[in-house]
């Protein structure tokens, strides 16, 4: 069994875990200071059933004395937990959500678990785990314009396939890794599970230390992989030749350069989610949308990942630029990313999103198609009404 330093669940996974915990005969969590609950999936409540789940999450949290982030107080769990200083390098985070692998960006072993696992974590502070193998991914060189962390991880998934990382941890290194900001690292690690991996680790470095300053009180030490550590596979991604990429429907591994997806008509653009709803993504979106308009045949939704990001974007005038362009700005929520609510797709519709999954039916109708891309590409698609390289929009006349 592996000890966990933080146990997290949400309005979908939490209530299912609480029932399992009761059936385990356990009425108190192992350590209330290490448990955090976030209402984010059907938040704000989509219907009475969703409202009941959030009520249950809050009441349970209050009764157990654990931290609860509810409506208006938090945001999307993974961006939120990093932002709020829950994630410390070298620690273990068990999350009732598959994208808990996001915390690898800060050098923590964050991994997604089901609700029964989470119940055992709440009871024992531990989960069962086999030691995973390692896939080393060396990022070399400097990214070209309009290429982001999203493209780095799409390139890796394209290479590994959606099962290539099963029973492994992706470990990112090389000078290109050191150059990525924390927001970009979060985007990279977030999709490690899309290759089947348990987490996606970045070594904690100076960039990490700067990010953690003022967020994390606990002392931490940067863990580094031994140079002679055994790796199952080594991958090299040359950032200087990497173009913006798109994952075509219906698998995150269907990755092509944006030029190969060019001209596909787009009904909706969705910028947000636990992978790419950060200030970095919103600024990239604003670079494209400011002074331009969303194409009349296209809809655009921008979802800042947390309340803090929402306010910062508000202060920077980004939200005004989005609304002026004809996009709508949503409250932080998992929303339509998982097909829950707040802008799901209809039959025959096509979307470009900065989210992490494009499985059939993921964002609504079974007859809709989702393309995964970075915020530049998504915003450019909103303006053009079709998939284009972002430079095509920027070189056009602002309208």
């Amino acid at each position: 069994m592996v000890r966990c330093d933080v146990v997290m669940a949400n309005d979908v996974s939490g209530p299912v875990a609480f029932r399992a915990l009761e059936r385990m005969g356990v009425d108190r969590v192992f350590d209330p200071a290490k448990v955090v609950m976030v209402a984010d999936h059907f938040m704000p409540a989509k219907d009475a059933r969703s409202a009941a789940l959030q009520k249950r999450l809050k009441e349970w949290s209050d009764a157990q004395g654990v931290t609860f982030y509810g409506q208006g107080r938090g945001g999307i769990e993974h961006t939120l937990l990093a932002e709020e200083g829950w994630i410390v390098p070298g620690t273990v985070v068990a999350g009732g959500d598959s994208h808990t692998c996001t915390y690898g960006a800060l050098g923590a072993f964050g991994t997604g678990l089901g609700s029964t696992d989470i119940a055992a974590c709440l009871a024992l502070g531990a989960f069962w785990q086999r030691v995973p193998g390692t896939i080393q991914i060396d990022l070399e060189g400097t990214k070209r314009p309009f290429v982001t962390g999203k493209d780095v991880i799409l390139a890796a998934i394209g290479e590994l396939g959606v099962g290539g990382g099963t029973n492994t941890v992706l470990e990112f290194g090389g000078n290109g890794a050191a150059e990525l900001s924390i927001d970009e690292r979060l985007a990279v690690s977030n999709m490690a599970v899309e290759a089947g991996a348990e987490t996606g680790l970045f070594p904690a470095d100076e960039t990490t230390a700067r990010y953690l300053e003022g967020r994390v009180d606990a002392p931490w030490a940067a863990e580094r992989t031994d140079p002679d550590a055994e790796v199952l596979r080594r991958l090299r991604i040359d950032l200087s030749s990497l173009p913006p990429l798109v994952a075509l429907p219906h698998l995150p591994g269907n990755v092509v350069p944006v030029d190969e997806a060019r001209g596909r008509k787009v009904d909706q653009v969705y910028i947000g989610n636990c992978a790419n709803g950060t200030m970095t993504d919103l600024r990239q979106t604003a670079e494209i949308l400011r002074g331009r308009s969303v194409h009349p045949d296209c809809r655009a939704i921008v979802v800042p990942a947390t309340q803090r990001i929402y306010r910062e974007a508000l202060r920077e005038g980004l939200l005004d630029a989005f609304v002026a362009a004809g996009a709508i700005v949503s409250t932080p929520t998992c929303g339509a990313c998982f097909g829950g609510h707040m802008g799901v797709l209809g039959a025959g519709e096509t979307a470009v999103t900065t989210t992490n999954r494009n499985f059939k039916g993921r964002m609504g109708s079974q007859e809709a198609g989702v393309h995964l891309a970075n915020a530049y590409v998504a915003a450019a698609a909103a303006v053009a009404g079709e998939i284009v390289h972002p430079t095509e929009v920027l070189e056009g006349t602002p309208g």
Partner: protein
Amino acid sequence: MIEGRAVLIPGDDVDTDVMYPGAYLNIGDPEQMKQYLFEGYDPSLRKELEAGDAVIVVGENFGIGSSREHPPLAMKAWGVRFVLGKSFARIFHRNCINLGLPIVACREAAAAVSHGSRVGFDPDSGEVEVDGTRFRVEPVQPLVRELTEAGGLVPWVREREGVR
């Protein structure tokens, strides 16, 4: 020996969104969940599960994506005997073990199954039987075996912890 009738789920990389779409994640009762199992893949498969004797047989990397426990909970609610596949995604695999739904990875056995085959699994001998032909399964780790024998993670924790 756990035995049943094979319900074949063709294809590889079948994800948990098609097995149980996100819109239904606010359902908590497995009896209601089971009405949406395979909703995004092939809802007619539910008819095949009605007799309560199904063994779900799948391809490579089955269960990718979300950590949602709704698919294995719904399978259990339909009385699925066990899941046999070529390989599984990590979280789906451990969810089945944790919920006490036996799950077996064996490429040769899964490849030998046709729709309606008689399929059996003997956890003690570690063998799978498909229409009378036996296949050896790679032994699982001791803890996984312990969890399976206990009937899942809930009884396993209950036995260790008791009521605190």
